[in-house]
């Protein structure tokens, strides 16, 4: 013990240690309180595994198990109630942790599992029993009827594992029933929303550089002659609501496995993260029971993403954080990963009968059982207690080790197909991969974290950090040796067959048998109804304030607009060395960059641009324009940093409330239609996507639904990264131009929001015009004429120019009169803070003005002012008076203060 403490656990310079005694220090002192926190049984703490390894390295081999706990020693006169509050609201999350009496640790002995085949009486069940079964597995009536018919034809009852397999495979999370439903929408019938909107745009555009779309785990596009890029964004909302740290960490872990499981596997090279939370200043006393405070969720999610992403060594380069009170019980956590792979490995593989089913990476435990069905359900205030098995904290190093070896195996050509093991666990992964041939699995061969799992638990467990590969028998020895050489788990658990059956065995006895035909095509299509109801909000009534400086500072200080540096700094955005434009730019490395640019191949000048567009405020008015705006924003950011529209792929992520309500579904349809309309004109295909529905929370009979939220992620390929442009002003004396038209579009704007209004005039998009202007601006950048360019979004021209000024450490002076308008607007504040789409603020050196104006000819643009040496941002209003004059440093302070945590 002495040796373990001295050599390993304690740092002699900074720490002290004691062992076999209850505590360090004098416990008898007055007003000293102990809180000791340990993980619940079944939550696997990575530290235990690492410590075990290190102790063995020391030559001590008698240690059987390790447990860790954290002790907080609190001094002060505190009541039991206050102590309970500190521990409940701050230190302990009962989903994964509990407090323990000081020094009394329990090492759980896992009881062995005794096999017993569990058959479920279906064919002779009465009505009540059938209804109960249907509910238990979460099927709707049509689905359950199909299942009943299947078993009646077979003349036998199902086993539990068969029904679980069907429940997982047919869950909303896995099969996207809503997007594939037959929908009656007004007088129209939409048969498969995905195919008739988002994917249809891709099909019609038919871009030769799209290598794999909507069929694999992620979308794949060409990068250069040798390489392909692979991009996927997912959500991990429900787990993050109940255990933010673990939920978000496993969100990253999960999305990283998507590019890894695309084609024959790609190497993750960048992450993007977008979060939606309730405002951090939400009053504690108004918090519904069972719901974590948004500040705690925010901090936990940030920590989870950082810890997992940083450990994997993937730079987090891009993101956004948005706030709305209706994200209170349903925070949204979008995690995205960009991967790179050799072009010839970009197509999904196909196993041959006789190939072996090999599961690699993490071991299987009871974690995350029913995670998929959980993700597809509404949260209630009881969710916290019911969902304990759905949440895990993840182990990034297990995933990193697995990635390292898998990429070597890929390069040696040792497997024929790869797939991630995610939602639904092996049941989804094996079922999906096996669909083309048939497969037989011996469930007892799956490596387990601990004893006691039933065959069904093994099959549906969602333990993290696992992948599935199909290995030809002639390579099995080599590949198992390779995995063993880096201490990564790999086990043969079955064999692909040619009978198109999914057969499950446990210790030689058959426990499940489903035909692939029924499993994948037996699900009756959902029939749904949708209506579209336009919403109406109060039209704002307030006069233009005399001091627009205060208005600007108010907008800069809103949660949505303010600096997110506190978060960004805690992500490693430099690892792998590829960054060309970082998330923070400008003279002090703290200005808000638009899109991020990386070099996927360090030795090449070719770049990849990652951007995102999202604004839920617009969705409160019209989902169609929210979607159109999100696409426009994602593209604007790409153009702003010097990219072009030649090769831009998009991803969609729809997060919605319960679409079983017709008006909710109607809004979803409107948003999907906008995706089609915009993508086809801009020439930017969607290559992959995901949806998360049912983001609702029931509390005291009230239903809280999230605002309609669409995240559009953009991936652009850039020929020469040396043409990149950052948003910070570069030199006093340069001209400031506005590109694009300003309309009276303040509906859902940050300005209205500071005044307590939503309004109705939501920003629209005219894609034909916008595309032409974007193409011209790209040309100007490629010619080296543009010194700085910033996407004009939340807060409009006012915020964009202010940000460029403080990022560049320079002043600016602009005239409202010079701003090109598409319609008559008589108010300075409206012009300055309108959020019309397709606009840019551009800095041009005096010597390049003529050349720039020549390139831009035909587009709407105008010179509106100058970059100034002074330290002020000044705006001259329509009546020639100074309507805004603020120190740039004050604006920056207003913008940085809210999230300087």
């Amino acid at each position: 013990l002495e040796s373990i403490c001295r050599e390993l656990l304690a740092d002699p310079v900074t720490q002290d240690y004691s062992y076999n005694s209850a505590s360090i220090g004098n416990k008898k002192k007055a007003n000293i309180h102990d809180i000791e926190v340990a993980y619940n049984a079944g939550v696997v703490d990575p530290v235990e595994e690492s410590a075990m390894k290190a102790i063995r390295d020391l030559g001590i081999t008698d240690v059987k198990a390790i447990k860790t706990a954290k002790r907080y020693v609190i001094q002060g006169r505190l009541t039991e109630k206050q102590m309970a509050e500190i521990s409940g609201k701050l230190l302990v999350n009962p989903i994964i942790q509990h407090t323990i009496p000081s020094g009394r640790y329990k090492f759980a002995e896992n009881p062995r599992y005794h096999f017993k085949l569990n058959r479920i009486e279906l064919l002779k069940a009465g009505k009540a029993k059938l209804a109960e079964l249907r509910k238990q597995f979460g099927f709707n009536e049509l689905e359950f009827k199909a299942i009943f018919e299947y078993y009646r034809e077979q003349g036998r009852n199902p086993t539990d594992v068969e029904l679980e397999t069907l429940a997982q495979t047919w869950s909303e999370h896995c099969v996207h029933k809503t997007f594939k439903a037959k929908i009656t929408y007004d007088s129209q019938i939409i048969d498969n929303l995905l195919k008739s909107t988002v994917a249809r745009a891709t099909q019609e555009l038919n871009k030769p550089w799209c290598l794999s779309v909507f069929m694999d785990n992620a979308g794949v596009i060409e990068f250069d002659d040798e390489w392909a890029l692979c991009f996927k964004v997912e959500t991990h909302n429900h787990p993050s609501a109940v255990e933010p740290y673990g939920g978000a960490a496993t969100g990253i872990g999960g999305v990283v496995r998507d590019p890894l499981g695309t084609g024959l596997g790609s190497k993750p090279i960048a992450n993007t993260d977008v979060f939606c939370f309730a405002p951090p200043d939400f009053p504690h006393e108004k918090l519904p029971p069972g719901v974590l405070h948004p500040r705690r969720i925010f901090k936990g999610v940030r920590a989870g993403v950082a810890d997992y992403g940083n450990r994997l060594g993937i730079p987090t380069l891009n993101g956004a954080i948005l706030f709305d009170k209706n994200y209170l019980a349903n925070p949204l956590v979008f995690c995205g990963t960009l991967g790179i792979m050799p072009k010839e490995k970009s197509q999904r593989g196909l196993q041959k009968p006789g190939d072996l089913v090999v599961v690699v990476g993490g071991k299987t435990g009871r974690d995350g059982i029913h995670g998929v069905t959980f993700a597809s359900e509404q949260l209630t205030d009881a969710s916290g207690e019911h969902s304990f098995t759905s949440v895990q904290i993840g182990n990034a190093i297990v995933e990193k080790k697995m990635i390292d070896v898998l990429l070597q195996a890929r390069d040696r050509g040792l497997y024929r197909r790869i797939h991630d093991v995610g939602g639904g666990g092996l049941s989804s992964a094996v079922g999906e991969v096996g669909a083309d041939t048939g497969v037989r699995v011996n469930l007892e061969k799956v490596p387990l974290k601990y004893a006691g799992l039933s065959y069904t638990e093994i099959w549906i467990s969602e333990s993290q950090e696992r992948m599935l590969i199909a290995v030809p028998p002639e390579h099995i020895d080599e590949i198992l040796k390779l995995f063993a050489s880096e201490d990564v788990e790999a086990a043969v658990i079955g064999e692909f067959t040619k009978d198109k059956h999914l057969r499950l065995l446990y210790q030689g006895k058959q426990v499940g048998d489903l035909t692939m035909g029924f499993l994948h095509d037996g699900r009756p299509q959902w029939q749904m109804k949708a209506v579209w109801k336009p919403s109406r909000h109060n039209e704002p009534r307030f006069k233009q304030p005399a001091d627009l400086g205060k208005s600007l500072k108010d907008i800069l200080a809103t949660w949505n607009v303010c600096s997110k540096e506190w978060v960004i700094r805690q992500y490693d955005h430099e690892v792998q060395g590829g960054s060309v434009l970082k998330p923070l730019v400008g003279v002090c490395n703290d200005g808000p960059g638009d899109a991020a640019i990386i070099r996927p191949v360090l030795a090449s000048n070719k770049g990849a641009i990652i951007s995102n567009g999202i604004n839920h405020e617009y969705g409160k008015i019209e989902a169609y324009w929210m979607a159109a705006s999100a696409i426009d924003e994602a593209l604007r950011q790409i153009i702003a940093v010097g990219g072009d529209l030649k090769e831009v792929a998009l991803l969609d992520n729809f997060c919605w409330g319960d679409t079983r309500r017709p008006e909710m579904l109607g809004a979803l349809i409107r948003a999907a239609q906008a995706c089609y309309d915009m993508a086809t004109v801009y020439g930017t295909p969607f290559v992959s996507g995901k949806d998360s529905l049912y983001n609702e929370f029931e509390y005291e009979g009230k239903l809280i639904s999230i605002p309609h939220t669409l995240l559009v992620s953009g991936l652009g390929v850039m020929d020469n990264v040396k043409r990149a442009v950052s948003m910070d002003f570069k030199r006093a004396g340069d001209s400031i131009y506005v590109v694009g038209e300003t309309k009276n579009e303040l509906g859902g704007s940050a300005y209205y929001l500071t005044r307590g209004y939503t309004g109705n005039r939501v920003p629209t998009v005219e894609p034909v015009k916008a595309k032409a202007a974007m193409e011209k601006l790209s040309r100007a950048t490629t010619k080296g004429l543009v010194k700085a360019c910033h996407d004009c979004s939340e807060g409009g021209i006012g915020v964009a120019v202010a940000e460029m000024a403080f990022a560049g450490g320079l002043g600016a002076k602009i005239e409202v009169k010079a701003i090109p308008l598409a319609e008559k607007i008589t108010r300075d504040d409206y012009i300055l803070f309108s959020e019309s789409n397709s606009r840019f603020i551009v800095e041009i050196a005096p010597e390049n003005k003529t050349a720039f104006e020549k390139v831009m000819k035909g587009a709407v643009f105008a010179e509106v002012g100058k970059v100034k040496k002074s330290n002020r941002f000044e705006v001259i209003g329509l009546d020639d008076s100074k309507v805004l004059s603020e120190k740039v440093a004050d604006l920056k302070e207003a913008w940085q203060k809210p999230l300087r945590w």
Partner: protein
Amino acid sequence: MTKGKVRALVLRGPGTNCDGETVFAFEQAGAEVTTLHINQLIRKEYNLFDFQVLVIPGGFTYGDDVAAGKVLANELKVKLGKEVTRFVDDGRLILGICNGFQVLMKAGILPRLKKGQAPPLTLTNNDSGKFECRWVYLGVNRKSPCIFTKGMEQMYIPVAHGEGKVMGDLTAITEKNIAVYYTDEKGDRTAGYPCNPNGSINNIAGICDDSGRVFALMPHPERHILGTQHPQWTRLRAKKHGDGFPVFQNAVKYAKDI
């Protein structure tokens, strides 16, 4: 192996994640680089003495569980300690970056500890209490014998760590062992946070042994090899090479004669 080329070994373990850019940096500097998993050395599939330079790159080895770099340090000390010591005494080069610095220090390789000697220095939690990724200016100690920083004056390179604060008994080293320290843009060594991003005593960013052949630092020179890696290259125009590049050139130049 190419004859006449300097051979560098980039050693990775579970959780190493800066091996790619470290390989790139050494290759740009003209070395022939091999990346090996520590298991491959332990199993003796490769011979450490086939290389002139040993690099332990950044990452989160074994998740930085227990303490940053600790588990790999323990493994290195127990399983390869003798060989590494002989490697140094044989006149070869060792470079540790970020997690590599943590590993070398906690394994008692830098500073070199005698058997049973309690380590005088450690790398511990940043004063800010946070992992932070930011760019820092390093001043180079001209009086240091460090091979890697020869002829250099200043570097602008990023840090990305949560446990980078040098702490402990400074009498264990002398001023010349402090090869690089945190400064502000003008080279002022008293600038404080965030110029010194972790609160390191005496602004120590990296140290070397008395021979100058073993060098380790928290910031990442391998992340500033290309001009476009500079965070303000769009303002200042990209230089051909980044500030970290000479570190690798110096190593390769010196190792040619080993």
